């Protein structure tokens, strides 16, 4: 760092720093600010009413339900898959990794579309489902499925590289010391990956609560029934109830900020751990 200024022209740092701060201020800081400023534009009372009216409460409840189902399922999936991919060599592993990553790359709208094609009225199972009076699309199960699809890679992606980096020496030595498979998993593997796991869970949670495109396609927008918080924001905004829309949006923004804080905290923890290992 001492000699940097001798290699770089002196005007470079102020120039780049200025561009960075201006760019990020416009694209990141202003959107954050406007959410709260609009939400509170008519005072705290209106704000509170906006987030406590029955439809808003219903949207919050549905969102929490979706999170409570999708996050644990995807966590189990992520850990099992990471174990499979990091600890074993087998044919078709590359293909499996591609499949796991796929929901990341697919447009959320397409994620919604595929479930409509499966379970919608004209979908593959549409006729059978309506015969048995089961609703998936335009109902809670569809929302859960779409969210599950969108968020399935998060935990796996975080801990696969972590587990691969750690190798399997520690697990093997635990086995030689007489530990059972489950003991090895809980006492050796989990402590090693806990921060990465938490990281994945937090990202997965944020996305599950905030997913819009995929959920919009399968939800049907039935107020108080199939609207999650982001969809509720959309409905309010479409009805020109801007203050109410921003009030609900501010809750999601707070969630995003908490996510960023936790993420930084975990990175700091992992960073610290890494430097101790040197």
């Amino acid at each position, binding site marked *: 760092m*001492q000699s940097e200024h001798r290699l770089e022209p002196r005007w470079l740092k102020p120039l780049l720093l200025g561009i960075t701060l201006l760019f990020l201020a416009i694209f990141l800081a202003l959107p954050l600010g406007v959410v709260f400023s609009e939400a509170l534009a008519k005072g705290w009372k209106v704000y509170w009413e906006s987030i406590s009216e029955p439809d808003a409460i219903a949207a919050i409840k549905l969102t929490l339900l979706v999170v409570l189902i999708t996050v644990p399922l995807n966590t189990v999936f992520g850990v099992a898959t990471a174990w499979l991919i990091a600890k074993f060599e087998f044919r078709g592993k590359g293909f499996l990794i591609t499949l796991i990553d796929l929901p990341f790359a697919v447009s959320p709208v397409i994620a919604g579309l595929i479930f409509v094609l499966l379970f919608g009225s004209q979908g593959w199972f549409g006729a059978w489902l309506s015969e048995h009076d089961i609703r998936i699309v335009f109902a809670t199960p569809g929302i859960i499925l779409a969210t599950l699809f969108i968020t399935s890679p998060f935990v796996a992606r975080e801990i696969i590289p972590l587990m691969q980096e750690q190798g399997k020496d520690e697990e093997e030595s635990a086995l030689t010391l007489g530990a059972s498979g489950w003991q090895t998993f809980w006492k050796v593997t989990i402590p090693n990956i806990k921060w990465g796991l938490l990281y994945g869970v937090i990202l997965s949670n944020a996305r599950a609560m905030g997913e819009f495109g995929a959920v919009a396609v399968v939800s049907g927008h039935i107020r108080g029934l199939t609207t999650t918080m982001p969809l509720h924001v959309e409905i309010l905004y479409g009805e020109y109830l801007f203050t109410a829309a921003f009030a609900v949006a501010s809750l999601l923004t707070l969630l995003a900020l908490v996510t960023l804080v936790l993420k930084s905290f975990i990175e700091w923890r992992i960073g610290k751990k890494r430097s101790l290992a040197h």
Partner: protein
Amino acid sequence: MSIQISNINKRFDNFTALDNINLTIPDGELVALLGPSGSGKTTLLRIIAGLEEADSGTIYFNGEDTTSTHVRDRGVGFVFQHYALFRHMSVFENVAFGLRVRPKETRPSEEEIKERVHKLLKLIQLDWIAGRYPSQLSGGQRQRVALARALAVEPKVLLLDEPFGALDAKVRQELRQWLRNLHDEIHITSVFVTHDQEEALEVSDKIVVMNQGKIEQIGTPEEVYDRPANPFVYGFLGNVNLFHARVEQGSLHLENTELNTPDLGNSKEASLFVRPHEIHISVDNAEGSGIEAKLIGWRLVGPRVRVELETLHEHQRVEAEISKTEWQAIKAHESGVLFVHFSNARIYTNEASWNDYVI
């Protein structure tokens, strides 16, 4: 081109990296900056190159002040510890880099560049791999390409930072000899940094021993090895045994022995430095004045035997390196009292400078 370093100081936060360094490197010499890590040797090299700025002091090239000259214009060739070869460029392109970035007025023609690069690649005996990329080279080849790249700009001074540090033992040995020969051929003023005393002793014309930001000694390899200026240099250049003794009324008291040393004065502490190969061991003290000791352990190291002893009076550890024949004679008396003799020792008292004693 001679280099003169005058009153150079450099601090990093609370750490003094260089403390008032003065040094003159004559034209055409190959000089080693030798010292442990943190001794300031790399910082000094980087200051000579202009990669680092000194807090105070001046650097002269041929008597000309270059302190404020940018690295770009200083005309030094710098070989980095990890070579810093540009990965996306072939060997040829790496060596040609310095010529190709010149401003149009001074840039040689593409043809001339080609000729000069190939000449250099021949010099480092790597003409046949001009088209390869750094990732396809061995460590020794990378080292030589880095050297050729630095030489391509026809520097007035060649600076090398731990040039052999990243190589394995055998290649290192070969390259040392090769660098020495190369220097004899092109005679460019060269400075290299090393923490390996053997390397410094073998390759350089002159060694600058550094410790804690200061120069401890400057001299030819023979001078610094045979006549170390102080205990640090003695200890840094090879293994050493340290004995604590007392001078009383013209004689030195060490363990059970006494030695006439009229010129050392009176009533003071003294330290004796003895290299392991300067020690020999007897079972009968036939020569007299042997220090009584007992055997603790021994180990075969190639053709020699490394023996560890403990003195009977002061319980000091002694390490000796003796021949196998000598060891055979002692081995029978393994459990008895042995006698330690010095063929050469250096005595250091707190005020006197060094004294050579052959006992």
